[in-house]
């Protein structure tokens, strides 16, 4: 079991309100990702759930029981920190066994659990090492191991992959997703990287300045963003926003079109937007063009594979009309 409900939870540090009253429902077994730019309060929200910070008002329920005033250790949640927070003077074995030791679990049972967790996480050969002798990915796994052995109601991850290099990050992302499949435990994951959010989440919570902008599955957010902020935050490269005359033609203050929903042509196409290639980014599988237009600013367009345009070439962009998002003055989506 591991359902968490936040009711009107808010947090202020002194006079500054970091999180305005907020409601959120996290179901048992869900993989929920809190995503948002840095300073949006996502880590604070996680720490409130963990109990490392006291809420200023509101209520946190875990499995239907009020846990607002429950100390962190009693909430039955396990947390993986950004810095991993391994105990540097203890071996990997003792690190993983620490929560069991604190819970007064019998040494023999603890040993079995540690061995089991180590084999799941490929740490068996490193059990006698100190954290200082491990690589970043291995430290990350030890931190996860320390969380697993407690058999928590939910796992909390606080930007766990931000200290890893790009290749390792992709690996660990997969491992965490697999772990979620195996354990089927609720996981709450905080990140500022929308790619991590899109790839791992069952449910994404987009936060800005403490406010929840939108909650939904990755594809819901991608296809039907509730506002301009979500539209710009989800998806890479960023959605193009166009204001002015072209937007007015769609009866909106601004329109948005994703780089992948534009067709590019080197020859003149009727009704297409004309522009000049500024930069071409070649990724092999795709090419991203940054195109300067006369009245619409710089637009990003994705073309599949190689596309023979270079800096200074003229080109024409045809947006997919059905994929155009319309926004009003406040940035709200017009349905």
């Amino acid at each position: 079991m591991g359902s968490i409900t936040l009711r009107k939870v808010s947090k202020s540090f002194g006079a500054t309100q970091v999180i305005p009253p907020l409601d959120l429902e996290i179901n048992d077994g869900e993989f929920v990702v809190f995503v948002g730019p840095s300073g949006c309060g996502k880590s604070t929200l996680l720490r409130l759930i963990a109990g490392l910070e006291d809420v200023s008002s509101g209520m946190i329920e875990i499995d239907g029981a009020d846990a607002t005033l429950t100390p962190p250790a009693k909430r039955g949640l396990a947390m993986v920190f950004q810095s991993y927070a391994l105990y540097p003077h203890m071996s990997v074995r003792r690190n993983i066994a620490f929560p069991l030791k604190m819970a007064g679990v019998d040494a023999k049972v603890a040993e079995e659990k540690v061995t089991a967790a180590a084999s799941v996480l490929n740490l068996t050969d490193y059990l006698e090492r100190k954290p200082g002798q491990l690589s970043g990915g291995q430290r990350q796994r030890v931190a996860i191991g320390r969380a697993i052995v407690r058999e928590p109601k939910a796992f909390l991850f606080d930007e766990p992959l931000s200290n890893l290099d790009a290749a390792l990050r992709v690996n660990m992302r997969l491992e965490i997703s697999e772990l979620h499949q195996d354990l089927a435990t609720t996981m709450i994951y905080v990140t500022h990287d929308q790619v991590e959010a899109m790839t791992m989440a069952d449910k994404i919570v987009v936060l800005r300045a403490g406010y929840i902008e939108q909650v939904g599955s990755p594809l819901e957010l991608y296809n039907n963003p509730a506002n301009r902020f979500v539209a710009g935050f989800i998806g890479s490269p960023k959605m193009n926003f166009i204001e002015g005359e072209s937007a007015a033609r769609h009866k909106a203050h601004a329109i948005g079109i994703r780089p992948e929903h534009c067709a590019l042509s080197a020859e003149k196409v009727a009704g297409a937007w004309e522009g000049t290639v500024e930069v071409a980014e070649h990724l092999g599988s795709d090419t991203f063009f940054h195109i300067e237009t006369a009245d619409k600013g710089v637009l990003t367009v994705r073309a599949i594979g190689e596309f023979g345009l270079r800096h200074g070439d003229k080109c024409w962009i045809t947006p997919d009309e059905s994929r155009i998002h319309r926004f009003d003055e406040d940035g709200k989506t017009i349905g």
Partner: protein
Amino acid sequence: MATQHSRSAARFMISPAVILLLGWMLVPLIMTLYFSFLDYRPLRGIFDCCVGLENYSRFMGSSSFWDSVTTTLSMVGGILAITLVLGVLLSLLLDQPIWGQGIVRILVIAPFFVMPTVSALVWKNMFMNPVNGLLAYLWKFMGLQPIDWLSEMPLFSIIVIVSWQWLPFATLILLTAIQSLDSEQIEAAEMDGAGSLSRFVYIIMPHLARAITVVILIQTIFLLSIFAEIFVTTGGAFGTRTLTYLIYQRIIESQNIGLGSAGGIFAVILANILAIFLMRIVGKNLDA
């Protein structure tokens, strides 16, 4: 950068400092060594060359010698124990966010700035005096017989005085060590179900181990040569005669420079044995 040329230039440039320091250290050491083989008593006009090891055997043969070694060790040990235990507790306390933290921290450091002679005199006259001392008033207030600290428990009294002086040093080093502890580690331990005592034992103490060895090393070096506090309080009486004080008495009070110098050489050897011993512990701790 480090070419052959620049390296030899560097050697040349630091040589004045090295030579000065070497001279500063070696001249007194060699003179002491030289005097320790003489029968040199200036007030009696005796300056006899080459008495061999007689000074050494006389110095170490006297009953006061071993007493002074044990006094020295128990004094150093006692001060270390008090400063470390209280230092850890105090630094934990000072690490808490409180109002006026900056002022409190400066106040805590203050005793370290008081000259040893002054602080010993303050303690002797204001606190430990059996008639007018504050402690005597406290004892009387509780209906007890005031204690004449410096004659009834002189060694303990001196340990208290010196501990008071050195506590700020230990606190300061340990406080900086505590502040360098990653707060996420404490939070992780909290989530792992460790109570405050477990957090102290399993997380904070191992983190402090390094700082504690540094405190032990530095304090031992300085505490082996305590002099002023003994001089102005008991004058070496009532079993407070440390090795340093014994040497002082042999040279100044008995005017026997040869005998005192032999003691001095022994003190150098003792300090070095302790230093090597401590350095190895510290070195081992700093490697990890």
